[in-house]
């Protein structure tokens, strides 16, 4: 910065590129000019790019030059003039700092919004369930219209492929129940043989089917929601509609049907392996022979318990399939909403499975079954 013929001249030297200007920036922002520079000397300027040119320009603007005024350059530089012209005269948006005063009104507004959202969500879910059920019943009356390929594909992917993990999990839970039961019964009653009843009741009525439900909520819900959600994101659902295909018919019904068929089978598998887990522990640790175990299960743990457990399986299947599809269809255009929908899908499904199970328990208790 110096004066020539009474005019202030700004000298810029060295490289002004994206690699170098970062360290200069703070100094430049602090710098104050005594007089408004009228001319810029670029003869000693090295490499320059838009970041550098922009900073030179900002410096001049802060120095008092009007935004649209062109300053004179002194010296020769291959790109400086063109670059400075390129960066000058661009509109600059005022930065708006959003302030969020916390007040009682905001709080009320949020509560109100939340409540309305909850209501909308509830109505939306109910209407979706209605629509899905109606479409599914309609299709059941015309079985040739059901997309069987899709049904079988889902049955394999969400049903058969889940069998190993479901059985495994249930097997270990059966073992744990037998262990805990044995220890407790030994200490309190001295009658370990009741372990069989404990395992039978717990696994048949509750654990077999609830474990299946929770595992499906984690495994199947996330996959259904992600599948349908990414189809929604890529406008495949819109494409279906324009081709005259009802997305509920093509995507939701096959999933509901497949889950309705597979969940009871999975729950059955889980119950069997849970009992097997109990049997193993009873045999190894308590000297209850497998034959005794099976006989006691047959004679004392009545078959009703099994049916109580199995009766919940189709309900859990509906919970899993409906929530997964509904959340998938709620996905918007961006990735974040896909993540949100997948999380919501899994969380809602696990929550509902536990709640539904509790309702069943109360209902059967009242009925005395």
């Amino acid at each position, binding site marked *: 910065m110096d004066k020539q013929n009474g005019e202030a001249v700004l000298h810029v030297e060295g490289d002004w590129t994206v690699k170098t200007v970062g360290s200069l920036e703070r100094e430049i922002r602090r710098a104050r000019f005594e007089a408004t520079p009228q001319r810029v000397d670029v003869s000693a300027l090295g490499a320059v790019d*838009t970041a550098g040119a922009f900073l030179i320009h900002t410096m001049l603007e802060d120095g008092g030059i009007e935004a649209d005024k062109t300053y004179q350059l002194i010296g020769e530089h291959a790109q400086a003039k063109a670059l400075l012209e390129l960066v000058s005269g*661009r509109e600059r948006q005022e930065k708006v700092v959003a302030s969020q005063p916390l007040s009682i009104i905001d709080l009320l507004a949020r509560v109100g919004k939340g409540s309305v959202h909850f209501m909308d969500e509830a109505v939306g879910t109910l209407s979706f369930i209605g629509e899905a059920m109606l479409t599914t019943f309609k299709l059941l009356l015309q079985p040739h219209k059901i997309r069987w390929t899709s049904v079988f594909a889902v049955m394999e992917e969400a049903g058969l492929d889940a069998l190993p993990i479901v059985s495994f999990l249930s097997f270990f839970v059966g073992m744990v129940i037998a262990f805990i039961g044995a220890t407790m019964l030994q200490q309190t009653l001295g009658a370990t043989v009741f372990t069989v009843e404990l395992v039978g009741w717990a696994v048949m009525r509750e654990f077999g089917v609830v474990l299946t439900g929770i595992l499906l909520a984690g495994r199947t819900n996330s996959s259904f929601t992600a599948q349908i959600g990414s189809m929604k994101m890529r406008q495949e659902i819109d494409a279906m509609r324009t081709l005259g295909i009802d997305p509920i018919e093509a995507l939701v019904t096959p999933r509901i049907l497949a889950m309705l068929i597979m969940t009871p089978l999975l729950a059955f598998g889980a119950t069997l392996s849970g009992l097997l887990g109990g049997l193993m522990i009873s045999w190894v640790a308590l000297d209850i022979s497998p034959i005794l175990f099976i006989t006691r299960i047959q004679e004392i743990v009545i078959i009703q318990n099994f049916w109580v457990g199995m009766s919940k399986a189709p309900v859990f299947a509906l919970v899993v399939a409906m929530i997964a599809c509904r959340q998938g269809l709620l996905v918007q255009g961006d990735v974040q909403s896909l993540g949100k929908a997948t999380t919501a899908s899994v969380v809602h499904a696990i929550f509902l499975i536990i709640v539904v199970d509790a309702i069943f328990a109360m209902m059967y208790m009242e009925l005395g079954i």
Partner: protein
Amino acid sequence: MSDPIIQVRGLKTQFGDHVVHENLDLDIYRGETIGVIGPSGCGKSVLLSEIVGLLTPTAGSVTVFGETLSELSDRDRQAIERRWSVMFQDGALFSNLTVRENVMVPMKEHTNFSHDLMHDLADLKISLSGLPLNAADKKPSELSGGMRKRAAMARALALDPELVFLDEPTAGLDPITAGRFDSLVRELSRLLGLTVFLVTHDLDTLKATCDRIAVLGDKRVKYTGTLEEVSRIDDPWVQEYFGGPRGRSVVG
């Protein structure tokens, strides 16, 4: 023409049984804009991915800025990657960020600029690429296809790269926007000495921006030359490409 900035030698690409490239050689010189054309599925985008290191070629070498990518340590590679940028076919903007934040991503990652400077620079790049500033606060999903492309261009220019790869930059744009895009590419390559690697089908873009054209076919680069030279080559695909009604209006 100076030294080649990109040198591809004996490149072979194979996916399973399917050979995409074989013995492909290509030189790209500093400061030029090269357009890569060829029939659909001839591996134009695959070539681009291999040059920028997203795909590893089955055989052969790619040298960029005089360094062979496959032989570099991660650190040196990053230093090189900072000198180029890629604009993908459908933009590939981060959908959970606004347009401005998208443009600021490379700056945040590779510079020590203050937030204010990044903000202003991002706005500059956004308006340079022809977007209105009120688009800066929008999410990519709220923009039209053409606007997304321009936002992607703004992100590609964020760090003033020496080398820019553009994959179908004007596909899906209206003629006016496409025309502006072409002149932007031209202007920037003139001003900043930018080297541009362009994959395109757009004949107008070829004419408006490219110094040289490379024609891909038969798993290699068949011909290179200026638009005029290439359009006179006696090859069935080239003749059909430039000889059609669209081509004639550009060449003729």
